[in-house]
């Protein structure tokens, strides 16, 4: 079934189509949830909420943008809602004049597990902003609005996250990364 037919069938609540959608996309969507939420079970709960919203609101997808992008945004929002309950993003201090330059050799590769392990080692604030900026592609203005922080906080937290990742990579000597 192609994507268009799959979406159509899901709009008609075809269980077989819903299962196909789940099989096809849940690994990617789960990986997104895992990037934000350290605890696996919590990440699965967030995925469940996201998938429920996706399948019950699929009629709202009008086909104007990427379907996967639409689903990803829903899962990211669920992850943020979960995190906001436990973490006060506003309790971060603005640090000015933080400048970090990193260059890594082009042969470097990061295994998927490396990415997750590195992200897991970051504090929640750093990790969330890193995810939103680097991997979701949000701008600092959008991140500031989503998390209820200032644009400067978003920028400085990102720079600090980068610094931390650099030192973690160096310390842990990830294979292929030097």
């Amino acid at each position, binding site marked *: 079934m192609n994507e268009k037919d799959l979406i159509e069938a899901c709009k008609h609540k075809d269980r077989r189509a819903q299962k196909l959608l789940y099989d096809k996309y*849940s690994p*990617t969507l789960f990986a997104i949830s895992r*990037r934000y939420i350290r605890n696996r079970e919590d990440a699965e709960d967030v995925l*469940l909420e996201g998938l*429920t919203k996706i399948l019950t609101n699929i009629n709202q997808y009008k086909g104007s943008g990427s379907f996967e992008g639409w689903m990803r945004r829903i899962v990211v929002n669920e992850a943020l809602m979960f995190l906001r309950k436990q973490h006060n993003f506003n309790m971060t201090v603005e640090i000015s004049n933080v400048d970090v330059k990193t260059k890594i050799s082009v042969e470097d590769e990061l295994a*998927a597990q490396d*990415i997750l392990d590195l992200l897991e080692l970051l504090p929640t604030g750093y990790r969330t902003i890193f995810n939103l900026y680097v991997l979701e592609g949000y701008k600092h203005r959008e991140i500031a609005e989503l998390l209820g922080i200032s644009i400067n906080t978003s920028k400085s937290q990102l720079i*600090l996250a980068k610094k931390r990742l650099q030192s973690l990579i160096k310390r842990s000597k990830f294979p292929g990364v030097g």
Partner: protein
Amino acid sequence: MKKDLFDLFRDNQHKLHEKPSPRVWKQLERRLDGHKRRNHYSVYRTLAMVASVLALVAIITLLSLITESERRDYLASTSLIVEDFDVLEENTETLRVFEFTKQQVDRLANPIAEGRKEKKLVPALQWQENSSAKSNLFFSGYEDGKTYTNKIAPLKWLIGTWTGSSNGVMTLEKWTLSNPNTLLGEGYLIQQKDTILIEEMKIQQVGTKVYWSAPIGQPDQPVLYQLKGYQSNKAIFENAQIEFPNQMVLQHNSDDHFSIIYQNQKALAVSNTQMEYLQSRNTFIQQQVVRNLERAGK
């Protein structure tokens, strides 16, 4: 050629796939079944509602048709005595109702009254100073010929009597509007039968600026903090010259609760490496001095 760390993550992102455990699909299915059933029922409920409304309409129509035909028959069968009606006296009650109704109709037709010439409505001001902060709209009130707009108005919720406790001692705080530009606060401690005035606080507008003043450690020389802006339910006052606290936050938690928080806006001379260490396995809670108050009598 060197790559940026961010690119390293972005380029390898596609490798991130992880199958969730089977319970996720099981729970999802259950939810989808529940949703289907709810929708199913709601269709029946809607149909039932529509059917009953139609039935009601049918009954009313039938009844009115019956009474209409009965009336016609009655009229045809009897001869009516037509009376001369006297000219009605002016019914003042009816007139009043009529006038009121006319006013309502006029008001609906012309919803915006101009008001008096000397009082103008001014559009809501948007706080611009800290553009990265969530902007907060507040009404500037009326212009009354002066060059500045009243900025004390958004804080008038403070007016009243508040209580709280500090280190086991009851505290009382009374706020009044001593003039349109000044909110005056009196802070008391209650010890057994004594109510002792401890401090006088002010929120005062001078020109276009608003200041919080409190005698921080010096009763004769209150320290002034300037209002920098609003963030959600907080009014933030600052004085960068003070080592600690350089910020005062007036937080309006609800109609009956507010907090005064003295803190430092930026950490005291902590280097980046120190900050990184501090944040690595710890939760960063800013050094704060807090007073929580609730409305007296609640």
